[in-house]
């Protein structure tokens, strides 16, 4: 029966006609579009009727108390978790719910996990080289040569991440903050359209935080960046738009000042001094 109902919905493109392998279409503004998304784990609604729109080139911060569904939301976008209901679109052409993790990654959604994982035995330069978008099958990798173009791209990312002087160092000897930047750099090598960054400043010093804020604000514009963060000071220093999640749905959205004066937000964050 469901086949027939699909054909009767005349306002929609048939699923089998919707293109999958084609450039991301952002002519209408949003690069990421979540509508009415709900996920339950054993009856617990981790995400409850979530609606979220990220514009192309935007830097968005997402805050919320523990258990608000921030990580689950990232999992849904990257294809790790399937929602029970709702739709998730990348641009206005790609239905992320019909794609698997590697496809979503190659479409240009890069995700940075909380704990930095870099290849410790390799140099900073080599880490970036491996992350570079290229033919990654065995024989092309064996015969791969580093062209001037590749070097330029690696140099560009070294510059952006502030690791230029450390390019020959083994990644294992870098500080925690430098490893975080290197990992963001590795994501940038793949030229993503959308970066999802999970708690980038956890365990960082003041100076490292400032450096990270510069890095992320510098990226916005070329890439869309979504940052999930607990540290309010950090969020205040980078955010233009802040989304507050609470119990799986959006509680408030707007500038940092507007959000922090919102009585509902104050109530949720009571005692946390937002």
């Amino acid at each position, binding site marked *: 029966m469901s086949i027939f109902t699909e054909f009767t919905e005349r306002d929609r493109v048939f699923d089998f006609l919707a293109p999958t392998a084609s450039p991301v279409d952002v002519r209408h503004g949003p690069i990421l579009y979540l509508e009415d998304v709900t996920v339950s784990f054993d009856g617990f609604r981790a995400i409850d009727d979530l609606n979220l729109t990220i514009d192309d080139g935007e830097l968005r911060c997402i805050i919320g108390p523990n258990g608000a569904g921030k990580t689950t939301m990232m999992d849904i976008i990257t294809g790790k978790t399937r929602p029970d209901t709702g739709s998730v679109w990348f641009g206005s052409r790609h239905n992320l719910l019909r794609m698997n993790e590697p496809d979503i990654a190659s479409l240009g959604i890069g995700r940075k996990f909380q704990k930095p994982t870099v*290849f410790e035995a390799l*140099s900073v330069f080599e880490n970036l080289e491996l992350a570079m978008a290229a033919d990654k099958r065995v024989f092309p*990798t*064996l*015969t791969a040569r580093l062209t001037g173009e590749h*070097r330029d791209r690696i140099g560009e990312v070294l510059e952006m991440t502030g690791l230029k002087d450390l*390019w020959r160092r083994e990644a294992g000897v870098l500080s925690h903050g430098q490893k975080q930047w290197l990992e963001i750099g590795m994501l940038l090598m793949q030229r993503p359209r959308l970066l999802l960054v999970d708690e980038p400043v956890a365990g960082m010093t003041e100076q490292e935080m400032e450096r990270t804020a510069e890095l992320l604000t510098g990226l916005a514009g070329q890439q869309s960046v979504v940052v999930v963060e607990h540290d309010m000071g950090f969020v205040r220093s980078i955010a233009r738009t802040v989304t507050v999640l609470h119990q799986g749905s959006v509680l408030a959205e707007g500038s940092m000042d507007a959000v922090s004066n919102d009585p509902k937000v104050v109530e949720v964050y009571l005692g946390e001094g937002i």
Partner: protein
Amino acid sequence: MTDSNRMWLTRPLTEGSTRLFLGLLAAAMTAVVLMHLVFPEGHALHMSIYTVTLMGKYLCYALLAVAVDLVWGYLGILSLGHGAFFAVGGYAMGMYLMRQIGTRGEYGHPVLPDFMVFLNWDQLPWYWHGFDMAWFAFLMVLLAPAALAFVFGYLAFRSRVTGVYLSIMTQALTFALMLAFYRNEMGFGGNNGFTDFKDLLGFSLLTDGTRLGLFIATGVALAIGYVLCRAIVTSKLGRVSVACRDAEARTRFLGYRVERVQLFIFVVSAMLAGVAGALYVPQAGIINPNQFSPIFSIEIVLWVALGGRATLYGAVIGALVVNYAKSVFTGIMPEAWLFALGGLFVFVTVFLPKGIAGLLPKKKRPDDDDSDTTAQEATA
């Protein structure tokens, strides 16, 4: 810096360390050949053909150790069954040598090797056909271990078996093959294996000239194997394999098919081990199922650990040092050898965690020895 724009296979030849290795190998081999040829028998510096052949066997072990270091040092796969690939390569060579005996065997049968006549077989098993031709046998020296490694590796890596479980499976593989090759019905000579070889490519194996030739061929094979491994580890694929070793999940996340990288390097390593085995058999004069014994495979890993993992030249040093020590020890007090080996291993683990190679002046990272010009180039 190694010139990253060179073709991958010739890239190691521009490296100082590889040139040094090849130079030392060539010098040592020249010395051995000269000591045998120039000094007359009885002279203090004369080297008997027995010793030359012994050196040739050490070089086979060195090539085998390089093969193990490629998968263990650079890919993080601790294979405790590489002796199996060595032995399969050796058996392929042995089959060729058996067919070369012809009517000169005890029973004088023109086609069947002696042990088949003894078992009252009246025709060759199908898998023995073709081994009278040298090109076919030499091809099998490469293909038989490769096929074994491919099937084993395909199943293991596809199922993402890694770490200690994989090590145990490789151990089981070589043990199972040992039991199989002990059976007479397999058609590989049972527990006696193959021996009494007469000639190779028309040269008698009993003459000094052939033995010297085999020694030189082994050295050349070691040089080629070393350069090939070096070419792989200095390529981008080599860096990917180090990445697989250290953070497999992360490598997969970057878009590399980890199981294919593992399979490729495992198969290359098995082929090198097969070549080492094939060169070993005519010099040792015998191949039997003991070559499959798990102890032998563990010993190979000890050579690499003693010499220094993930350096390639460390594997060569380890294989030479341990086997030389073994020859000396088993000559003086054979029963003490295993204690000496165990003691040596404990000593190296405690005092030289990087093996003997760790004692050598620290080799610079490939990127270190070029000046800041490339730094500017890279970041321009």
